[in-house]
């Protein structure tokens, strides 16, 4: 055994002897457990506070979300309109704050049309169409020159409507004008929706489409528009119907590819019409939404070349910067 071992043994023996006679552990145990209790009490208190805070913040977040969702649902489709007596069709114009007053038989009703945010990256699910709180606003005047002559004279189909049919039409149309779209749509269905599509004049077809749309029947709302395109090809109503088809695909059906087809058709058939600017901007949006950036850039360049200060100019610049 080395001297160090000897010292170690002596120290260890002495300390073991000391430990054997120490009686401080019971008191220590009490102290330790008391500390443990305090710590647990504190922890429970913190947990309770955290739960209360989480509940408060969670409730607030839910409330805000519900309010935002309610506001989003209650807001009619962002519409800016320019009145046209021939085609009472509402049209989206992004980033164009304005107020339009209806010159229809309800002059007291006005639509406050505000700027609609453009967020092409947002992939919103199909949004249920709700009845607007005010009447839908007529579409922009379609007065630009077009490669195809637009005939504003009443078509033979308009004149072909019988007086009886006219009376029925007035009844659903009156309901629609009063904002009772569900009833108006039901009445139109009873009158024969397809028959109406085949017989109504262009202006009423747009009203019928709007009625179906606000009543929540997005798919059915396309039929009068398709009928307008087929029956009144080359007219301003057909151009507006084409745009409306694209808008329904874009906004309501969330089908950007179909929207691209309609907007492209509109620009091909009516390249310098009053809806070209909006269709061009929407086309950029739609290409961004489907993730086709090269096409989006191409159309963004075209848009900026034609409308450098247009409502979609900001979006076009952002697309080109990508």
């Amino acid at each position, binding site marked *: 055994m*080395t*001297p*160090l*071992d*000897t*010292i*170690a043994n*002596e*120290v*260890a023996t*002495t*300390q*073991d*002897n*000391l*430990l054997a*006679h*120490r009686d*401080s*552990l*019971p*008191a*220590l*145990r*009490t*102290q*330790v*457990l*008391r*500390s*443990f*209790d305090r*710590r*647990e009490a504190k*922890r*429970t208190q913190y947990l309770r506070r955290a739960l209360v805070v989480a509940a408060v913040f969670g409730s607030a977040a839910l409330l805000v979300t519900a309010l935002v969702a309610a506001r989003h649902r209650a807001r009619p489709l962002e519409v800016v309109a320019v009145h046209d007596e021939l085609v009472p069709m509402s049209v989206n114009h992004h980033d164009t704050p304005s107020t339009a007053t209806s010159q229809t038989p309800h002059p007291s009703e006005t639509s406050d049309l505000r700027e609609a945010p453009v967020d092409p990256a947002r992939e919103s699910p199909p949004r249920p169409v709700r009845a607007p709180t005010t009447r839908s606003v007529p579409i922009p005047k379609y007065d630009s020159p077009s490669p195809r002559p637009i005939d504003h004279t009443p078509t033979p189909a308009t004149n072909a409507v019988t007086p009886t049919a006219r009376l029925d039409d007035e009844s659903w149309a009156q309901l629609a004008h009063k904002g009772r779209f569900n009833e108006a749509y039901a009445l139109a269905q009873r009158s024969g929706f397809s028959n109406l599509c085949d017989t109504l004049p262009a202006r009423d077809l747009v009203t019928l489409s709007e009625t179906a749309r606000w009543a929540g029947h997005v798919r059915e709302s396309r039929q009068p528009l398709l009928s307008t395109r087929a029956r009144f090809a080359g007219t301003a109503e057909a151009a507006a119907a084409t745009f409306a088809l694209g808008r329904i695909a874009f906004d309501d059906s969330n089908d950007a590819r179909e929207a691209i087809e309609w907007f492209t058709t509109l620009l091909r058939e009516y390249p310098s019409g009053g809806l070209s600017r909006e269709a061009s901007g929407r086309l950029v949006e739609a290409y961004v939404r489907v993730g086709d950036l090269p096409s989006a850039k191409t159309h963004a360049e075209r848009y900026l070349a034609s409308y450098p200060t247009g409502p979609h100019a900001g979006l076009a610049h952002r697309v080109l910067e990508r």
Partner: protein
Amino acid sequence: MIDPEGDPASGVRPVRVVAETTTDAGTLHQRLLRGERAAAAILFDRHAPMVERLLLRILGSDSELDDLVHEVFVRAFESAHRLRDPDAFAGWLRRLAVCAAMDLLRSRRRRRRWLWFLPPDEMPEVEAPGVDESTREAVKATYRLLDALPVEDRVAFTLRVLDGMPLASVALACECSLATAKRRISRAEQAFLTAARAHPALATWVTDRHADRHSEFDDRGDA
């Protein structure tokens, strides 16, 4: 064994420990994490003697020994959620004890450095019954000499030489590599022996026959 009923006089809620020795570490750990006081009591009963002995070895007879034991267990219960392997509770507790002891020694050293004009802390008397005066003096002198060593070297030395802990455990407790632990022990051993030869209370223990001895831990079979 400590009475598991607690100390009614102190106002602390009595704890009934059922089958204390049979409760496995994993279950105890889970119960501790759930905040069960009985689990804390069982763990204290199981490991407090080891912690107390370990701290006594490192620090010697010290007035802050009880406080340190208390601190070690409070730390352990507070950070029990960090322990991944409940079976390693004892080793983890040992490491906590070593850390607490090192912190105390370092803070004392800092205090001595900055408050050098105050009288040094006196080692408390070793009050072990049945121990003769010369042995008491030798023990006191041992810790006085250990006070002069670097904290890391001192702790490694006391764990290895005084407590007889295996080298691997020393390295684990000191949170260093095996080589570092060996180096620290060797360095402390040489410094301690040199100082002990010059100390009157230890001179008789460290005679010339020690002059050509080899490093202690090399002969223990686990180096």
